């Protein structure tokens, strides 16, 4: 039998009839007290929207939520996830991770997933102490991971490529 890790392949353009669910973007039901909305656009290296992408979010807290959100991008590359803001999490080693969402991004033209994190601009103190943000020396690059508050919730655009390319992680 085959041994060894299976390689990734692109999600392709035709997953939308299979993977998204009606409640996929709702990590908690709409109307849940204190729910937040994280939204933005998925953009390519020319700044054009990626209308056939899939955004998934994962958070280990707070307890009692599904933790997982999934939203296919729309014609304008737009997505939105409704969830509860995660808590800061201390690791056994003593580091404290600032509140964040772990994000997987899939799309036609992405041969494997890209991974990033959504941090929150109104958690500046926690962000300063975050061990992952500390790995990113360049302030402009670090800023690609910080969602700012706007009228729709927290705004987090993903630039797959280009001058404003989002920081992606190797996990």
């Amino acid at each position, binding site marked *: 039998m085959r041994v060894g890790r299976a*390689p990734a392949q*692109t999600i392709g353009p035709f997953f939308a009839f299979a993977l998204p669910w009606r409640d996929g973007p709702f990590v908690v039901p709409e109307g849940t007290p204190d729910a937040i909305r994280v939204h933005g656009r998925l953009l390519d290296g020319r700044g054009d929207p990626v209308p056939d992408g899939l955004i998934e979010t994962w958070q280990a807290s707070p307890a009692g939520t599904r933790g*997982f959100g999934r939203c296919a991008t729309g014609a304008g590359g737009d997505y939105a996830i409704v969830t509860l803001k995660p808590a800061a*999490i201390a690791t056994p080693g003593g580091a404290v991770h600032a509140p964040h969402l772990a994000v997987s991004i899939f799309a036609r033209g992405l041969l494997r*997933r890209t991974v990033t994190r959504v941090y929150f601009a109104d958690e500046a103190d926690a962000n300063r102490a975050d061990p992952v943000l500390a790995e990113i020396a360049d302030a402009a690059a670090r800023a690609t991971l910080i969602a700012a508050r706007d009228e729709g919730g927290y705004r987090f655009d993903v630039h797959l490529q280009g001058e404003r390319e989002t920081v992606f992680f190797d996990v």
Partner: protein
Amino acid sequence: MSAERRQSGGVDPPFLHPDYRSTALRAPLRPPIRIQYGPSELTGPDGAALLRGQADLTRQHAGEPLGERIIIHGRVLDAGHRPLAGTLVEIWQANAAGRYAHDLDQHPAPLDPSFTGAGACLTDAEGHYRFVTIKPGAYPWKNHANAWRPAHVHFSLFGRSFSQRLITQMYFPGDPLLAYDPIWRSIPSPAARERLVAVFDMTATEPEWALGYRFDISLGGREATP
């Protein structure tokens, strides 16, 4: 540095692969930053809470789909070859004529009103999954002149933690189109490419009913190779 890490350049495709044209403007060009796993990477969703589909894709409509009925089964394993129990497996595919039930698929092949082409299940205690479906057809795409995708089934896997999340494609043994496919060939290592080719499995083949294929999947993540 672990052996898996040293070999990882050969397993996963690069982001930028010019033979697959759609990578040109979508491939991140800066190297991803390697991070220490934190609580987010070491945990993942409960597969049962995410299960939405069914394992038999041939019984989702009043009629039976056209095409060659097949069984696809195998085990989902972690990097240490331990079975991953209760983990979510999602699949989707074209119908027997090579057409997806997707609004934007313009291939002039017939839709099959008895086939949607999406399924899901959880692995059992031994990490085993099993789908009943029909063999998908090859289909043309516009990547280059006379471009055809080999027959394939898309697989989405969660494993037990965020670090193990994988979306890939399963191919069929002996398909002559594999040699021409820039997506399959984007995998640098020929040995790793072969891991995505299912094995014909007579033991899973059911007499008078369906041909069997075996497709085992080992997921990544670093916990088994610290």
